[in-house]
């Protein structure tokens, strides 16, 4: 069967294997030329190729590895906290050695250490793990390939954003070593607490300013790339949904981060120059009157912070939705249902996410009008999410699903994000939020969206594009083990949080609420939750083995192992050409998801975006049909 398949390379028609050869030949020739021009990457020496590389693909890989390590690190911080939550005050012998006597004398975690771990877990997961993975890694690697561009618009800038990010990460890590440890005021860093906090907070602020700068450089780069470097014929409405998601995400980063940068600068000044931007008059800390000019406003920080942090949460979810959409379209073998609706919904989501921020601040003394405004916008913003999710669900109708590992993760994402999203609604209704605010219900809500939501989408993406990056598939058996275990454990961790929240257990409690009588009826749940968390770590071992092992032992595959239509697969080799991505810049003829379109055959049920029309004399993507016509 497959022998009848033909692929167009340049002008001629070849069988897949020949096409493969031809393309690799193209690479060789190109390398040859580059060598003559002397501008060959691989002859710029190790440093320029692997460390200060300007190739978007390698930068993407750098982002991926760094972010995954931070993800693991952030997870491990939480695993320590989960012990304290499950068994408050009971020693964990090796902790003293791990964290030092100062944090865990005799292996008993101290409250300040708990707060430190909590704040850094949040910061690392959001700013150092998920965003760099979703945008820095997936975006960098795939966007230029999917739009048929030779690279990002500003390769040097691209390299810079990675290294500024790395520096920010290093600062965050080093802050664990400063006296009294890293930041302890939560990832939200509310003043005055954060202003009177120990030195770690200053490091946190400096680190954040680096991370923000990195994101700003990155987002400019993405926007210019997507607007300017689209291949001929690739109109906006022909973009793969993933690119759209990255496009809106980049806008969110570009416009939402600066206010936090401003706020960060002000908090930094409050700490090091004794200004009082966020310090009201007449503070008494520990019986001592605070020597500060006063006159500042603690709530101002919250406004600036949430003005970023709400759009930020959509930065966490949009690329995930993009990945899921790609994986689902490919494995259902049919176009996304309601592609346009999804695109418009995403744009609308982007706009709305700038006017909902104060739903995190309902209890800071808000009048009816303001709370009504933010409740309404919050309800409005849930609609586009509903539309996107509905479209993804309906895309499954009439499909022909392949249940490979990437697809399993993508499918699991849907209900998980659904649960997370739905539990956002009670929080969005101010009156219901009175009881639920700052309880574990909130923790449950957003973990369902970011952990079994975003993390699962990231996993789907890793399993799906791994062959693109390495030319080999990851092992399916290990993948399925990884999936099923993760799915079970992660739900055991987060589902009980809703119950704890309804019981009124506050978040960020060192003993998980052990002090409180009203917590006791449901406190037992912490023990299975913690066990599940530790087992979840074990469940990642097959993945880690798979991830590194498959580089060497993974099954070798062709350029387009998933029979995909988008150009990163169909128009270049896997792995792609070292420098320039494409043998020749492809010309786009059609939408991104032409699976089982009219004219396709059972053997070849897809038409790549860049393939010529079947109607053309030479049969375009279906030469054998043209031949048949002529014979008839």
């Amino acid at each position, binding site marked *: 069967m497959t022998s009848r398949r033909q692929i167009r390379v340049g002008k001629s028609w070849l069988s897949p294997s020949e096409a493969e050869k031809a393309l690799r030949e193209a690479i060789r020739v190109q390398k040859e030329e580059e060598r003559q021009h002397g501008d060959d990457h691989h002859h710029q020496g190790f440093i320029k190729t692997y460390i200060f590389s300007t190739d978007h693909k390698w930068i993407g890989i750098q982002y991926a590895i760094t972010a995954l390590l931070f993800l693991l690190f952030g997870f491990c911080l939480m695993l320590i906290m989960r012990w304290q939550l499950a068994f408050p005050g009971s020693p964990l012998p090796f902790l003293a050695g791990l964290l030092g006597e100062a944090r865990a004398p005799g292996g008993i975690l101290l409250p300040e250490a708990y707060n430190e771990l909590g704040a850094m877990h949040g910061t690392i997961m959001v700013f150092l793990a998920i965003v760099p993975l979703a945008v820095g890694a997936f975006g960098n690697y795939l966007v230029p390939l999917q739009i048929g*561009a*030779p*690279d990002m*618009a*500003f*390769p040097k800038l691209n390299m810079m954003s990675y290294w500024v990010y790395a520096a920010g990460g290093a600062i965050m890590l080093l802050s664990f070593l400063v006296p009294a440890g890293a930041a302890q005021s939560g990832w939200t860093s509310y003043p005055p607490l954060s202003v009177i906090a120990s030195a770690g907070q200053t490091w946190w602020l400096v680190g954040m300013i680096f991370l923000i700068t990195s994101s*700003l450089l990155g*987002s*400019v*780069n993405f*926007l*210019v790339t997507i*607007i*300017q*470097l689209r291949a001929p014929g690739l109109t906006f409405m022909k973009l793969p949904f993933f690119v759209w998601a990255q496009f809106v995400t980049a806008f969110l980063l*570009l*416009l*939402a*981060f*600066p*206010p936090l*940068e*401003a*706020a960060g*600068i*002000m908090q930094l*000044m409050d700490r090091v*120059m*004794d*200004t*009082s*931007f966020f310090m009201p008059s007449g503070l008494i800390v520990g019986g001592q009157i605070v020597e*500060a*000019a006063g*006159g*500042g*406003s603690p709530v*101002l920080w919250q*406004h*600036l912070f949430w*003005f970023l942090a709400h759009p930020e949460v959509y930065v966490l979810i949009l690329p995930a939705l993009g990945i899921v959409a790609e994986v689902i379209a490919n494995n259902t073998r049919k176009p996304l249902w309601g592609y346009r609706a999804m695109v418009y919904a995403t744009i609308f989501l982007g706009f709305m996410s700038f006017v909902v921020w104060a739903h995190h601040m309902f209890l800071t003394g808000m009048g009816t009008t303001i709370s009504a405004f933010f409740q309404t916008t919050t309800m409005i913003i849930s609609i586009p999410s509903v539309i996107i999710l509905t479209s993804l669900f309906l895309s499954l109708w009439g499909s022909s699903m392949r249940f490979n590992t990437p697809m399993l993760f993508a499918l699991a994402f849907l209900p998980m994000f659904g649960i997370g999203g739905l539990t956002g609604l009670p929080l969005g209704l101010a009156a219901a939020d009175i009881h639920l605010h700052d309880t574990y219900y909130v923790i449950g809500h957003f973990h369902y969206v970011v952990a079994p939501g975003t993390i699962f989408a990231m996993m789907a993406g890793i399993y799906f594009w791994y062959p693109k990056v390495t030319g080999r598939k990851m092992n399916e058996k290990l993948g399925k083990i990884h999936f099923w275990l993760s799915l079970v454990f992660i739900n055991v961790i987060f589902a009980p949080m809703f119950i704890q929240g309804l019981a009124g257990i506050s978040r960020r409690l060192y003993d998980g609420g052990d002090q409180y009588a009203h917590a006791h009826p449901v406190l037992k749940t912490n023990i299975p939750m913690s066990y599940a968390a530790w087992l979840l770590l074990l469940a990642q071992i097959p993945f880690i083995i798979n991830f590194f092992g498959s580089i060497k032992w993974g099954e070798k595959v062709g350029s387009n192992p998933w029979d995909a239509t988008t150009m990163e697969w169909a128009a270049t080799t896997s792995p792609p050409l070292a*420098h*320039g*991505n*494409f043998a020749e*810049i492809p010309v786009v003829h059609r939408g991104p998801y032409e699976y089982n379109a009219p004219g396709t055959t059972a053997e070849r049920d897809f038409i790549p975006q860049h393939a010529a029309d079947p109607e053309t004399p030479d049969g375009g993507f279906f030469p054998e049909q043209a031949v048949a016509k002529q014979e008839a």
Partner: protein
Amino acid sequence: MEIPYTIHARPDTGLYNGKLGIWLFLASEVMLFGALFSSLILLRTGAESWPAGWERLNVPLATLNTFILIGSSVTVILSWANLRLGDFRKAKIYLGITLLCGLGFMVIKAIEYGSKFSHNYYPSTDTFYSVYYMMTGLHGLHVLGGMVVFAYLLGPGAKMWASEPDRYTNRVEVTGLYWHFVDLVWIFLFPILYLL
């Protein structure tokens, strides 16, 4: 493989990459200063008493600075225009003047700060001074940034004129756009801090 539209505009967007890039960057700058201005408004309306800027700050010096900056915005355009006409000599002169204006602005700012310090008015004195130092300081950093780029374009960067004149012209244009923005921020800062 070359990255397209680094020098010449993409037909359907009418922009070359650098120009689009700077516009987007400026959009984020608008958000940055927008946040600072709204913070100022919030702090000011929240305070029980707020001093009038002209009582505390040196308005004549600031006015002078305003004219210097506006002037520099003009010279940077002239410089770019001359590059378009291919007159590199004139362009360099105007670019030089722009750089000097920036320098003059910073010197005057330094004098202003100095006199404040000598009277023991520090950022920590009260919220007014916190805001004053923070916003003028941040703006000053932007001016400094612009000056560095101009210095580069006049010095080591000037070689590019010989090899790729269009690209060099673009760089001047893009830096000019940034410079106009810095100028614009000052035109908002001046009345809000000094006059109100």
